[in-house]
């Protein structure tokens, strides 16, 4: 991906799904590669089980806006299928969706899963991964975010080794078992999307 000068990524999910961990991993890898980074986050009320998103902007030039303009996003990376669609109008023509297929149902009017996945598949180049199963196999059901990071890794501006290093940075302090599970989750996601 080194020919790209910039990359705008919408991270999406539900409060508590670990969006900000994904953001940290990509961010810190990008910084080590000398890119400029801006990352807009959601704190406060929405974090209580609401829809959350983070705008991640990586560039070899100066980044102005903290928000990605609608039509500029290269990638939507989502830990939840409904949330993947919520920000579709940020995606540029030719932009890609990488999402989990595992619904997080905490609302009464959640759409039909098959219709939802069909709509995502209608976005050319979309990648859908069963993050729940893969995270469990990797040893931590909480690592769905890392599975999705792995699934998106080959599309990301920072290189894979840098991403792995960031995963070590983030999860290393939480003990070997959690780190191991997340490294496995990353590989599983990567393979599922290959």
């Amino acid at each position, binding site marked *: 991906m080194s020919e790209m000068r910039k990359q705008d990524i919408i991270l999406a999910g539900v409060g508590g799904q670990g969006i900000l961990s994904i953001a940290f991993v990509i*961010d810190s890898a990008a*910084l080590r590669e000398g890119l400029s980074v801006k990352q807009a986050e*959601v704190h406060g*009320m929405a974090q209580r089980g609401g829809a959350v998103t983070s705008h991640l902007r990586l560039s070899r030039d100066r980044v*102005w806006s903290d928000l990605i*303009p*609608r039509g500029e996003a290269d990638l939507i990376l989502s830990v939840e299928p409904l949330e993947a*669609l919520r920000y579709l109008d940020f995606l540029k023509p030719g932009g890609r969706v990488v999402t989990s297929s595992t619904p997080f149902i905490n609302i009464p*009017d959640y759409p039909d899963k098959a219709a939802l996945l069909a709509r995502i598949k209608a976005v050319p180049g979309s990648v859908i991964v069963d993050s729940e199963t893969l995270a469990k196999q990797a040893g931590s059901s909480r690592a769905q975010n890392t599975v999705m990071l792995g699934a998106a890794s080959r599309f990301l501006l920072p290189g894979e080794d840098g991403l792995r290093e960031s995963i070590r940075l983030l999860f290393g302090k939480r003990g070997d078992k959690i780190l191991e599970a997340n490294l496995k989750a990353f590989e599983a996601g990567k393979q599922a999307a290959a």
Partner: protein
Amino acid sequence: MPKEILLGDEAVALGAVQAGLSGAYSYPGTPASEIMEYLIRVSDGGRAFHAAWSVNEKTAFEEALGCAFAGKRAFVSFKHVGLNVAADPFMSAALTGVQGGFIVCSADDPGMHSSQNEQDSRFYAQFAQIPCFEPADHQEAYDMTREAYDLSERLGLPVMVRMTTRLSHSRAGVETLPARPQNPHHRGAKECWTLLPSNARLRFKRVLELQAELVRYADASPFNRLALNPGDRRLGIIASGLGYNYVMENFPDETSRPSILKISTYPLPETKIRELVAHVDSVLVVEEGFPLIERLLRGLYGVPGKKILGKIDGALPLQGELTPETVRAAVGLPALARQSCEGFPLANRPPQLCVGCPHADTFKALKTALAGQPEAVIFSDIGCYTLGYFPPHNAVDTCVCMGASVGMAHGAADAGIHPAVGVIGDSTFGHSGMTALLSASAADARMVLVILDNGTVAMTGTQPSFATGQRLLEIVAGLGIAKEHVRVITPLPKFHEENTRVFREEIAHPGLSVVVAVRECLEEAKKKNKLGGAQ
């Protein structure tokens, strides 16, 4: 210089620390909470400087003011509505002036991501006639905070740094400067600090006399940047804060940019504004918040021969946040091509109480007790429990401001509403409920106040509460509530019947009752577990 990756909030905090901060005070509130969280983290347990949460914003302000009285550099931060609470000392601190540099950091929440209203703190700075800095990015947040301390000490005035949600909660790299030491003690003179009318008149005169100097400062400040495009006289843009970023985002190519004046300090740089306006036919004002610059520019009669565009004329929306798209349309560029999800039903996902939250059990028992009484009103307050508005709880009829539940239930009871129930969290009660309860107690108002004691300020990330546990019960007793009408319940499903009965009994009581629902917030418990595990 190494770059640190920081939240906008953290960039302000670090700027203050490295400017030689001695004392920082705050009350939690989105989007400002991360400022104090950072300060506490780097304060080395108070050994490097003092950094602490206060019981409310007014108290925080006064604590910081005491620090500035002592000649030390002081810092107070809160969300925009916190400045309403602190408005009393804020307005008069302009008159007392300060010995040590004093920064008031107010973080606005345009778009109301996590707030009950939209406000624009720049108007407060204008109201008090003190300088205000408005950073557009992280580097400026850091640099301007340092600069604000210098200006504050040079003029002996408090200075505001205005933040907004997007900058507060976005991360980017910041280059830092070497830290400087704290100030020595240097106490204020009593004729400056005792605002008896005879002193206060002199002090106010001083503030008025400083205004011209503030404008000269703004005109000279490199933070207010004027870049004229000599080849294009059609459109000039005055942009401040995040508005500036959105303008630049839409004109990445320098050669095709219209003339732009970036505003970063208030009062406004009048000469620079005149220069820009003289250069162009139309002026577009792009500012986050209310149209402050635009209104000043437009005045009552407008600018003869010039067209002024902005929020007042409808080029930009008056409500909510600016976005790259709204600014793009305002500068006359076509919308970018994009994908669309039109036609697919995107169910909303509003925030909600955590599964197992104690508030849910309290609401359930309260609603059961109130069943069959359609006249009942539940006056709620600010906190996670405001989410009780949504189904399945449907347990909130009002939410206005910190502490309003108590006073409103009292007033409504006076007006004949029955049952009148107030619902307030422990920290909100400490913040602004206690005085209102004293008032209700003196009147023995016919109301029930439910205090949800979960031991923390949950919504903003589990900061410490000052009125919780045994101390809370003692406060309630001390406010003169009859012992037999202070009831303590444990909001758990297994106590539902019992809790419902307690509510029924107290609703039937023809005077004031307080029911304290005690159970720890799940997030707080999680945090304690984590800390415990790490030890």
